[in-house]
């Protein structure tokens, strides 16, 4: 049964949601409105005047080969980040859940990476994989693998994915661990008596019961990979090599702040807004149906 509070008047409920509305207005609706407005103009090279171009910025973008490839990089990047942050997190949570003694210490250790700021995480990974002084690239060299993410686009992508996913594993772990602890023991035991061994139980009982958590994390991680990975990409690859790691949000920055093409940058952020909105709607519409609350 759903529990609902009913109010008599309208003033109190309005008052209660006012802070949220205010914050959303200042930090979300106003900038979004600004972005939409700006996307309709092209500023002159000195930034002194704006020329109205209607959908010109958008038309230009979709004709741009670089912009289309940025779409592709973004798709690859967010799929990889989401998978690389959720699967290990789930695996670790399952291990921690089985462990009775010492799971507290184990949990604390696993939470630390989440406390590391993205840019710092980026620097950390950049040093480990630095082509000249990095520990990991040196070991890879010993093994006969010539690591060079500065030149190799796939390696650069792998590195930014790893650096972005790393801290997220902690976050996802916490949610998965809590969800696992909430799965009734007796249900697992019933399955064991019914003949299901560990992995069978995991896939047919545990995973379906985790689906609300998995769904929530899916949405949150996709949004994360779209928007919050800027710091990592900026410190490690700055979008390179040859724009291999220029995801949409990075391109907004690169074109707007570096290239000073504010109109195009604004148009890009509007598109980004639409994409994330669409993704979230799709996720809720199609995946939520398969989720058992």
């Amino acid at each position, binding site marked *: 049964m759903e529990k609902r509070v009913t109010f008599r008047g309208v003033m109190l409920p309005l008052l209660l949601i006012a802070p949220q509305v205010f914050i959303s207005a200042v930090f979300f609706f106003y900038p979004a409105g600004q972005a939409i407005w700006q996307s309709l103009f092209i500023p002159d090279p000195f930034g002194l005047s704006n020329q109205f171009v209607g959908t010109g910025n958008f038309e230009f973008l979709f004709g741009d080969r670089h912009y289309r490839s940025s779409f592709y990089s973004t798709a690859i990047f967010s799929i990889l980040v989401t998978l690389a942050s959720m699967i290990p997190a789930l695996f670790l949570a399952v291990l921690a859940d089985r462990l009775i003694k010492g799971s507290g210490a184990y949990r604390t250790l696993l939470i630390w990476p989440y406390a590391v700021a993205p840019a710092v995480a980026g620097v950390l990974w950049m040093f480990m994989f630095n082509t000249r002084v990095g520990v990991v690239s040196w070991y890879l060299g010993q093994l006969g693998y010539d690591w060079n993410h500065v030149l190799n686009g796939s390696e650069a992508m792998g590195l930014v994915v790893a650096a972005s996913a790393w801290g997220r594993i902690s976050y996802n772990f916490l949610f998965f661990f809590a969800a696992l602890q909430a799965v009734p023991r*007796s*249900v697992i035991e*019933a399955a064991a*008596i*019914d*003949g299901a061994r560990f992995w069978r139980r995991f896939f047919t009982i545990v995973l379906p019961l985790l689906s609300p958590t998995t769904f929530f994390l899916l949405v949150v991680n996709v949004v994360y990979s779209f928007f919050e990975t800027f710091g990592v990409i900026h410190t490690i690859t700055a979008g390179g090599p040859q724009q291999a790691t220029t995801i949409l949000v990075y391109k907004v920055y690169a074109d707007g702040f570096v290239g000073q093409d504010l109109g195009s940058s604004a148009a890009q952020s509007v598109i980004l807004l639409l994409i994330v909105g669409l993704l979230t709607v799709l996720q809720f519409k199609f995946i939520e149906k398969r989720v*058992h609350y």
Partner: protein
Amino acid sequence: MATVTLKNLRKSFGSDDVIHGIDMEISDGEFIVIVGPSGCGKSTLLRMVAGLETVTEGEVLINGERANEKEPMDRDIAMVFQNYALYPHMSVAQNMGYGLKIAGMPKQEIAAKVEAAAHLLQLDGLLDRRPKQLSGGQRQRVAMGRAIVREPSVFLFDEPLSNLDAKLRVQMRLEIKELQSKLGVTALYVTHDQVEAMTMADRMIVMNAGVAEQIGTPMEVYETPQSLFAAQFIGSPAMNVLDAQIADGRVMLGDVAVCDSDQRAGPVKLGLRPEHVAPDPQGPLAMEVLLSEPLGANTLLHGRLAGTEIAFTASLQGVHLANHDGEAMRFGVDPVDCHLFDPETGHRL
């Protein structure tokens, strides 16, 4: 069909000894009730048989074969949990068929078995529902169905009725017993309710703090309780236990003789069931009635032995409209209904 043997079975959680050595032979098709107060180790004992807890010491034999190291799934058992433990994301049919599916049974065969079990348990028409769309009693039946479709050798029940209301409990109690004898499957049934134990058990094991106080048929336990604990736990209202003395071959309560005994002289605990004393103006027991409870078929009189603070309860057959409150009454007792226990060990004398 199976026998179950427990040999000096012990369980410790760390340094906490929970089960202190239980021996029992259970024959094929027997309905065994494990009864005792909360926390006495009933579930732990059952879970060791199920393979959900490791055995610290001793042996569990199923069909004469050592099962200590076997996984639950390899023991040919089925269990009904107190909270039913249904799979919340599966339909009733999927819940019941899960074990069969894992065993690799063809789909049609599973469907047929599930349907037959559903029919037996009056669950027809509910097969597509999710557990949360069922009432408590229906969930209970689904849990039963899940246990019976697999045709196990042993049924294990852990307080399966304790979440149901009183009326349903009585009904399900009968149904479970009937089902078990129809299927002829050996059953171990845990409960804290002595009425369930009395009505369902072929034999019961009365547990107290990890020790089997008595193993026997309900009538054996009722008529010749082997310990003070068993005497007071089984039977409702509980047996009166009085401090008495044996002198000159008689059991003395103060200076009145209640019954005879050939035990050696000295202090003794005298147990008298409320339903075994009868009003008798010449009887040895003088009681001051403080409160009477007419229950319909019988009337309970609560009070104390005259001139003392010792609580005493008597149960009189039939409805007694006369209010006995504040009255002094005398009761007599048949010597065969006197139970004597060693005051130190609590063992029957």
